[in-house]
Every structure is written in C-alpha cells, then in structure tokens.
C-alpha cells in the first residue's frame, strides 16, 4: 500500500511529560471508510496520541500526515478546519449554554453573512434536525441547557457534535464509557453510516466486544510503544490481550466463591421525591449485589442518598441489624459504608492535589494521632494501597490529574479500600478501565467478599454484571423492577426486558 492511500498517518511520534516518556515512536494509520480501533492499557498513551493529532499537545518529534500531506496543527481549531474532529474522553460541556449552542460553538450560523450576528433560529433548527436524525430528540431538545442533562445525554450531544462537523476523520476516545447499550446501538448506527461515507474513524475503547463488533483493524499501544496492528477479522481476544498487557490473562469473570454470611446492610422504603421511591434491598456479607438498569434509572441516586450525599426524604437503614442514621457522608464512613463514585472528576478526586492526599482524604483518622497527621505513616499506607491497585505512576506525590483516566479510577478504589469497608458500593467501577485492570478489580472484589464485605455493584456493562454478581436487582424510573437471585436466570435478555419494562413512557 502506498502512503497516499492513507487518510491519516501518524509516524514515529514521541512525547514527554515532565521528563516521563509517554509516547515512544508510536504511530497509526487510517484508511478512508475504515473503523480503526486503538487499544491499550490505561496510560498506554492513546489519548495523548490523539491529542497530538488534534494539535492540543505539541509533539516532541515525529510527523502527522493527512492524505499524504504533512500537517502540524497549532490547536484544535486548525484540526477542525482541516477536517478532523474528536469526541474527547473527558466530557466537557458548557453547562449554562443550550444543546444547540454547544453543538455549534465556534461555527455559529450568521444571520447576515459577514456580520457577527448569530442566527439562533437556524442553529436551533439544525440542531433539531441532527437530534432527529440520530434518534435522540425524544429526550434531548435543542434549547435545553447542558447542565440539565445527565452524563449519557451529555455524551450523546458530544457525539452528535463531533459527527456534525462532517469531518474526513473522526476520533472517538471512549465514546461508550458513559452509555448504556441502548445509546451505544445508536452510536454504532452512526458509525456504520459514516463508514459508508468513507469517513475514517479512530475508535478507542476498553470494551472488547464492541471493538470486535465494529472495527476493521485494531492497533495496540503499550507503554507508549506501537505494538502492532491486526485485522479484526483474523484477530482473537487472547491475542489482543497479550499484545496489550504483554502477558497471559485468565479469561472470563472470576466466580465469587466467598461464603455468604448474615445480612450486613438493609435499606427499607427509601424515598426521595422525584428521584426514586420505595427502594428496598439487602446485602449479605460476602455477597456481591448487582444493580442493573438503563442510564437514568436512579441507581446512583439511591446509593448517594444512602451514604448521605444526596437528600433522603424517608427510609430506614439497618447495618448488621441495627438501625443507623446517616445525615452526612462522614456518618457513612464512620459506619464503614463506602462509595466509589461513578463520576471521578466531580465526586471522586481532588484534582491539583497529590495521589497520596487523595487516597488519604477520607481515611485521615487512620494516619493521625488526635488531629495531628503522622505523615510518614500516611505515605507508607497510601503507597501500599496504590500498589495494591497497580496504579501506574512515577511518584505518589504526583498530581492526581496527571494520571490517565483508568489510573484515576484505580486511585478512587484505593481510597475506598483504605477505609476498610463493611459495605462497599462500586458505581461503575470499571468505567474507562483496561482489561488487565478490570480483572484486577474483579479479583479484588472477590477478595473483599471473602473478607466478609458486602458489595453493591452498579454497572452498565451487563456481561460484567452477569459475570460477577451473585444476585441482580433491576431498577427503572427510580423503582426496583425485580430481582434475579439465581445465577442461571441471569441473561442480558431478561435484565434488559425488566429494565425497559419499567421505563415510563416519556413524551
């Protein structure tokens, strides 16, 4: 194949962040009409490579070629103009602006050509058109403010925005990490459509099934090196995993063999007006309870209310048979009811502070005498938990924000583990986490279960839920729709039909 055939080619890209080499002669090629998946462990450098192509970061060396011509974008604006758009891993909506304004930001339609006046009507109309086209106009309106959307809706808007540039090349950095299967299907339809229009797509994801479903070729990065590129048709899961982690991994999901003890936590009749109602559930020691539901089912809200973060209108909480009152997250932590939030950026981590401080934050009582900190102890303990979670870092004093997305997630879990949970609530614990780390997390969950901890796991990835949970509760519209207690009953089909069955028809 000659170079000219490539829509995009990145060659020998090197990039160093504060002395650490993140990309080491990495590269990638994309053909027109191809879906090119890019895989690799957390921190392999996938996002960084994409940001270099988009001109968000400057490369230290190497070249980027577009249709055979060398390009060197000084910023995203130039890349957009040249015909490359990107769905970013970190969602970044402008909360106070409307959906339409967000989608057309930077290329607003003018009322009069040449004058800077905006044609709001035209923008809203085009947005309506786009929303219709991508089948989301039922629940997203052009004039809604972004702050009123939930995370999945925001993700859909960002996808639509990137697509609407009509670019020659579209980069998608983990576009499905906040989507449930329903929305993912919409995305896959969009991708099929674009592929027919000869658009080149770079698709980054940690979800193996997805990648096999939609991609043509798969490239793998490891530690900033380009490992290889395989045709999806001929590749196997095992081969890819080997390429990514450089070692054999056990396949499938580990089974929870922990002995089930007494009921540790029981929720009775939990209600919060307009969010969820009459939620009852209980979890036994050593048990992993899965919470299934479509995005927006209110699962996170119940759990956040349980730990005292959100308001709770009524309901009773029993811990080991005793009624407890939780008014503030500190109460939950005192009772060792610990939550690992789904939104690490907003609720999980304090950016700008070190990994150590983040892990220690809710566990300061363990590393202090009275109100005075024992700093050496803090450092040792935090290091221990960071190591247990295999966080890829140079130093525990590093800013948490300099970690890759997946490693940030691991830091959240490290923090929760350190709190010695009796009840551990894991809200989307594997969001944006690579395969290697995923199995680490599953193993940790089982390990914890064996120690007699009750685990509640919320996940939008049904295979994972089915694989790991002992029991599954399905929620929809803020209500518990049903419970599956027998592992034999677990199937995507049953769960989905329960989850859909409960959704009240929104107009």
């Amino acid at each position: 194949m000659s170079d000219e055939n490539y829509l995009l080619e990145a060659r020998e890209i090197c990039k160093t962040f504060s002395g650490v080499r993140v990309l080491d002669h990495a590269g990638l090629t994309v053909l027109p009409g191809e879906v090119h998946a890019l895989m690799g462990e957390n921190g392999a450098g996938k996002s960084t490579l994409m940001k270099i192509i988009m001109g968000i970061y400057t490369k230290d060396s190497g070249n980027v070629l577009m249709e055979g011509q060398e390009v060197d974008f000084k910023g995203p604006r130039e890349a957009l103009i040249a015909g490359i758009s990107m769905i970013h891993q970190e969602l970044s909506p402008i909360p106070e602006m409307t959906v339409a304004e967000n989608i057309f930001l930077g290329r607003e339609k003018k009322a009069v050509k040449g004058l800077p006046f905006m044609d709001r009507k035209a923008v809203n109309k085009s947005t309506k058109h786009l929303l219709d086209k991508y089948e989301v106009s039922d629940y997203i309106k052009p004039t809604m403010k972004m702050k009123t959307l939930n995370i999945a809706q925001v993700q859909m808007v960002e996808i639509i925005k990137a697509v609407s540039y009509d670019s020659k090349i579209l980069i998608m950095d983990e576009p499905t990490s906040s989507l449930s299967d329903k929305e993912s299907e919409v995305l896959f339809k969009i991708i099929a459509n674009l592929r027919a229009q000869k658009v080149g797509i770079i698709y980054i994801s940690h979800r193996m099934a997805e990648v096999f479903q939609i991609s043509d070729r798969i490239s793998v990065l490891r530690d900033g090196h380009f490992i290889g590129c395989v045709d999806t048709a001929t590749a196997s899961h095992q081969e890819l995993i080997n390429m990514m982690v450089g070692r054999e991994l056990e396949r499938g999901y580990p089974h929870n063999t922990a002995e089930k003890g007494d009921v540790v936590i029981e929720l009775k009749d939990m209600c919060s007006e307009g969010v969820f109602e009459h939620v009852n559930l209980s979890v036994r020691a050593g048990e992993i309870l899965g919470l299934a539901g479509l995005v927006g089912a209110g699962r996170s809200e119940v759990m956040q209310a349980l730990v005292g973060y959100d308001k709770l209108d009524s309901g009773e909480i029993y811990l080991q048979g005793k009624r407890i009152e939780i008014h503030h997250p500190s109460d939950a932590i005192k009772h060792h009811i610990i939550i690992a939030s789904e939104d690490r950026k907003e609720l999980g981590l304090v950016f700008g502070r070190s990994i150590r401080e983040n892990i220690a934050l809710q566990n300061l009582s363990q590393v202090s005498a009275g109100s005075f900190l024992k700093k050496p102890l803090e450092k040792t303990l935090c290091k221990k938990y960071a190591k247990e979670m295999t966080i890829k870092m140079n130093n525990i004093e590093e800013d948490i924000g300099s970690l890759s997305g997946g490693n940030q997630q691991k830091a959240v879990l490290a923090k929760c583990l350190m709190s010695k949970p009796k009840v551990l609530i894991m809200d989307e614990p594997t969001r944006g986490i690579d395969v290697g780390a995923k199995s680490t997390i599953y193993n940790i969950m089982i390990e914890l279960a064996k120690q007699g901890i009750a685990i509640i796991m919320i996940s939008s990835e049904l295979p994972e839920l089915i694989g790991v949970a002992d029991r599954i509760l399905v929620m929809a519209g803020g209500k518990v729709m049903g419970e599956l207690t027998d592992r034999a009953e677990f199937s995507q089909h049953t769960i989905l039909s329960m989850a859909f069955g409960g959704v009240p028809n929104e107009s």
Partner: protein
Amino acid sequence: MNLNLTRQEFKSILPRFALVAVVLIIVGVMSFLSPVFMTSKNMTNIFRQISINGIIAVGMTFVILLGDIDLSVGAVVGVVSVFCGNLLEQGMNWFAVCLVALGVAVIFGIFNGTLVAYFNFQPFVATLATLTIGRGVALAYSDGRPYIITNPTFKAIGQGYLGKVPIPVVILLSVCVVGFVILNYTTFGRYFFAVGGNKNAARLSGVKTKRVEMSAYIISAICACIVGLILSARISSGQPNAGEGYELDAIAAVAIGGTSMNGGVGSLGGTLLGFIMIGLLSNSMNLLNINSFYQQIVKGCLIIIAVYVDMKSKGDKK
C-alpha cells in the same frame, strides 16, 4: 404564539422579577417618604449619578462573565482624567483628546489581557498590579496635582444635555444597548459565556479563547475610559485620584445582578438592575438625610438582601 410557559422558561424570567421587585419596593417606599423623590428632576439626577458606576459595571460584566475580575478600572479612570486634563490645558481639540484617552485606556486593557490570557496570571493579581501601576502613573504624570478643564465642548460630555436627557445618561444607555447586542446577538458575545462556562471545551471547539479574554479587558478599559471622560468633564478637572474605589461598586452591581464570579452565568440586564439599585439606594438615603455612617450599614445589608432574594427566586444551589 404559545403562551404556556414551561417551568424552565418561567425560571429564566423569574430572577429578573425578584430584583425588579426589590427596586420597585424601594421606589414605592421612597415616593411615599419623600415628596421630591418622584420628580423628574430627581430622576434625572439619579440616572446621571448612576451613569458613572453603570458604565464601568457594563464593562466589568464582560470580564466577570469569564470568571475573571478587573480591579484596575478605577486607576484607568484616573489615568484618563489626568491625560485629558493635561492635553486640554495644552489646547488640544476635545475630540482628539478623547481619542488619545481611548488609546491610553486600551493600552491598559491590552496589558491586563496579555498578563491574564498569554502569561496565565491570575486576574485578581494582574489587575491589582495594574491598579497600583495605573494610579502611580496618574500621580507621577500630574505630579499629584489636578488640571483645570475649561474647554466647554468637553465639559458638555459631563454637564450637557441632549434634549432633556443629560449626556452621561445618553452615553450610559448607548453603552448598555451596545453591550446587550454584543452579548446576546453576536457570536463573539456568546463566546464570553462559552469561555466563562468551560474554557477548555470552548478551546476544543475552536474558539480563540485567548482573544476573547483579551477583548474582555479591552472592553472593560474602554468603559473605564468613557467614565474617565465623563467624570473629568463633570468635575471640570483632570484629577489623578479620580475613580478611586470605583471597581468595588461596579463589581457589587454586577454581582447583585446575578452574574456569577465563577463565570459562565449572568446577564447585562441583571447588571443594569444592580447599578440602578445601588444608585437608587444612595439617592434615597441622601433624600432621607440618613447619617452617612448608617448609610453604609444599610447599603451593606441591602446588598445581602437583594442577592439573597435573587438567589432564592432562581432556586440557585451555587
């Protein structure tokens, strides 16, 4: 037309109502307490007095929408004032003087903008430094002494009338209208909300965020310049101390108007209500002959009440 307001739409109108209500209550109480309050003469006074703070507040709104702050406006007023005074004393044409003043102010705006947008200074620090430098320049240039302004055309900027409306009020209205059109009807204006709301996202969408930030400081400096001209004309002299502390009143007006100091949320309409309220209050208390020490206490309390009422009506959760 559909007259059924959705909850969403209603909420977006309500905030205005709460502030308007506070303003109307003050007006109502005052027209009862003071016979001269509602006279056209007094209204003219109020608006003329408001114009100084109002014009600065309009410029400040642009800066605060970005989540930034401009403390240097008062100093720019002082610099403009001494330059005008000196040049007019030397017999320069009034219009040329205005242009020179504008040039000087824009330099200050660019200075602020460069520090903040290109050198990543924190706005508070950068403009605090500019404030110190600006006041120093005004004092050093004039050697601390005022210049007397006699040019009658120039003086009209502060003391004249257009029909029955004082010229400062005409200028205030023009500035408000221009600001309103820019913010709400131009793409450039929408960028202030975008950059203020999420700078990174705006940049990723191809918005030239640095330029937007730069323009905010230039706009603010231009407004300060206009005030410098009006003020010098009004007091018939170029004073190095002119405009001292004006930044705080302007920021108070913007904040009362519901614009968030974190950027991204706000409106010029709110700012308008904010400075009208402050002006009204001070006029009212003067008419009621309230001791100036107690005036300050009342003013502070009313700021709190107004902001509280406004927040409640918006159901704001910060």
